[in-house]
């Protein structure tokens, strides 16, 4: 198995975690209620920690560079994050819907990776999938509560779902070069299968929330992030995230 394919898979997963972790942290101090302030801050901490664990696999097992340098010194075009995670937080309805769609996508991904033929990923996935249950519990609870509360909150959640679904489908952008290798070597089951499992996972919850999943035939997934084409929002985020680190990249902390 060539390691380039595994690196490609790990980098896109880790970059999604890092960028969404940063976006979640932007809710610190601004959450609509204190519990939500704490929840988004905790999830930020989890996501950035998971990104670190993945960058460490690259560093220790696959001849990668130091995780901090990898996170803070790369050019924008070398990031493999999906457009979904790059979007600004907007209002709470969008952030919550993104959290719901992304964390369920992550949950099915890590559950599959817990059977990966690549041992370091398998072991990490086993740990992360347990922790993610708290993220999806949180997302489900709020999506259901708000969607079933009153007309306005239901309309806003439906609008958020309609606006976010194509971006979220973009998480599952298959690798141009490595998809079949990763599947045949049983590193992971491939984006297409993960996408199916994700739809099966979110559908019953959306139904309970009285939300209508848009007809998937009419949804064009927003691809490009996995090839290095990003939204205009990524570069400002990277600049801000690396601001302190880049004052002196050789400083020790």
């Amino acid at each position, binding site marked *: 198995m060539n390691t380039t394919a595994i690196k490609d898979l790990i980098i896109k997963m880790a970059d999604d975690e890092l960028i969404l972790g940063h976006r979640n942290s932007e809710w610190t101090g601004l959450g609509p209620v204190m*519990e*939500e302030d*704490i*929840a988004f*801050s*905790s*999830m930020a*901490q*989890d*996501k*950035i*920690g*998971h990104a*670190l*664990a993945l960058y460490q696999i690259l560093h220790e097992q696959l001849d990668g560079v130091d995780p901090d340098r990898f996170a803070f010194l790369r050019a924008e075009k070398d990031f493999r994050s999906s457009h979904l995670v790059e979007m600004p937080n907007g209002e709470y309805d969008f952030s919550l819907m993104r959290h719901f769609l992304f964390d369920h996508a992550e949950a099915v991904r890590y559950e599959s990776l817990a059977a990966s033929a690549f041992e*370091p990923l398998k*072991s*990490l996935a*086993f*740990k*992360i999938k*347990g*922790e993610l*249950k*708290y993220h999806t*519990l*949180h997302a489900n609870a709020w999506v259901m509560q708000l969607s079933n509360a009153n007309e306005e909150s239901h309309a806003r959640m439906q609008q958020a779902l309609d606006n976010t679904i194509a971006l979220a489908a973009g998480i599952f952008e298959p690798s141009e070069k490595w998809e079949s290798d990763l599947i045949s070597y049983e590193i992971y089951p491939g984006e297409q299968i993960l996408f199916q499992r994700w739809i099966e996972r979110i559908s019953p919850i959306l139904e309970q929330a009285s939300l209508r999943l848009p007809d998937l035939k009419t949804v064009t997934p927003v691809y490009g992030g996995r090839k290095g084409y990003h939204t205009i929002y990524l570069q400002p985020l990277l600049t801000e995230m690396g601001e302190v680190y880049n004052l002196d990249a050789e400083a020790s902390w």
Partner: protein
Amino acid sequence: MDPEIPVLSVVDLGMITDVEVLEDEVRVKMIPTFAACPAVNYIQTNIKRALEERLEVPVSVTIDKSVNWSSSRMTAAAKEKLKNYGIAPPPKEQAADPLMLIAQEVPCPHCGSKQTYLRSPFGATLCRALHYCKECGQVFEQFKPLD
């Protein structure tokens, strides 16, 4: 000691996976509770310093990648200490779905009532959730179960 729950030691928490005593060196292996725990390096350094002071030999403390932490690694004594400290311990039995354990009525560590509900799965640290006791009207924390 855990820097955020100062009544619990790393042994109580089940964070130590191996100790190897060699002729002129001690090697300790440990694991974090939650993967993104920011206190890991701090705890690592504390273990090293504490052991080196007592034993007067070089000590190495490394992260054990082969073992994952779960709440069943916590000792019964640790759960008692947690409760007395005011944090509800994770439940004994590991259900197939740990969410059922956290979402159902967790006994209040202050008054023992089971008339409680989960307020948020995220508390002051990654390993704690927030609950509310309808009986004594207090918010309390629970050490989250993890499988």
